[in-house]
């Protein structure tokens, strides 16, 4: 079970900050939950920048971003 970061409802740029912190902790496999398209784009950009792979899937009103090694 990979770690889940619930960033739903948090305003910009907190979803990115939380993602960054997870990456800094050395995590390479985790999920980020967000609920706006903007946060989804921002988190994906942050993941890309850190040379990890990210893919987003919509689950109702939530986007689940799965991060993994490239």
């Amino acid at each position: 079970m990979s770690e889940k970061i619930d960033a739903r409802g948090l305003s910009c740029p907190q979803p990115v900050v939380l993602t960054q912190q997870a990456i800094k902790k050395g995590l390479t496999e985790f999920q980020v939950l967000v609920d706006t398209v903007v946060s989804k784009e921002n988190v994906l950009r942050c993941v890309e920048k850190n040379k990890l792979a990210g893919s987003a899937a919509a689950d109702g009103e939530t986007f689940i971003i799965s991060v993994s090694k490239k």
Partner: protein
Amino acid sequence: MKNFLSSRWGIIATGAVIGIIAVSLQKLGNPANMGICVACFERDIAGALGLHHAAIVQYIRPEIAGFVLGSFIIALFTKEYQPRAGSSTIIRFFLGVFAMIGALVFLGCPWRALLRLSGGDWNAITGLAGLITGIAVGVIFLKNGFSLGRSYRLRKSAGWVFPALMVALVIMVAVGFRVSETGPLFYSVKGPGSQHAWIPYSLAAGLFIGAIAQRSRFCTMGSLRDIILARDFHLVSGVLAMVVAATALNFLYGQFKPGFANQPVAHTVHLWNFGGMALSGLAFALAGGCPGRQLILSGEGDSDAAVFVVGMIVGAGVSHNFLMASSPAGTGAFGPAATIIGIVFCLIIGFTMREKVS
């Protein structure tokens, strides 16, 4: 559907178009180096409504309504319209109040700081230095877990309130509404408030910028924050494109006048140009967006952003009524004191609103 405007070239195109429209609006009647200024225009709206009585800055600016409505319409189309609220509302209100107080000490929001720079007003440099400093402090808080808490979904109608108010304002200014001979709406007969483009031009410009800013997520504060926070140069490429386009067009129109002294709607008190923008930058960083971005978010249904905007409009009233706003002659009597109080307020919020998120 791939969203071109959120790509690197998309944000650059957005910034360039905003720069071109802003400078063109100056040519069409808006005040010098103030083709678009979110803070100044909200201040003018506050004046038109009678929230302050500075006779030279009273006018309902259709650009502001256009930003909100342009974002609202495009968000409905792209299904990004999403009513939400509940993230430290009263704190966001006061962040808006103090952001405006700081902006009126400097005389402009970040958008206008960039436009002033593009017009050769070097006082903008100290302002932008202040802005960067304020944002940098905000980033330190963000890195240490600063959060105003989560927002929550609301019913669809909740997000309509603010756009509806904007429609009402546009109708009122379009018909020249007044309750009586002497009273609101107030319309400046001289000074910056009397200088404006034809209403349809202003509204169209606002709607268009609102739409492309929504699609591209254009944010001046965010552009600097992302560099400090994550070495992310995405948003700043749009901001730089805005400056380049605006500067080029200012040269073309013969509006580029370099120097510190005698710049339009500006003063040369460097310390408080710096201080005012530092306060604003910190308040924007804590609230998660520059004043333009807050209007766009309001259109998307973010009620917390709308409360920030209302805070800015009220802040403009307070600023002028309590002699905090600057003028070309220099800072207002209580501007520096209010700036310090605002910075202390933001620091307290920054230190106390922290969440340990695992």
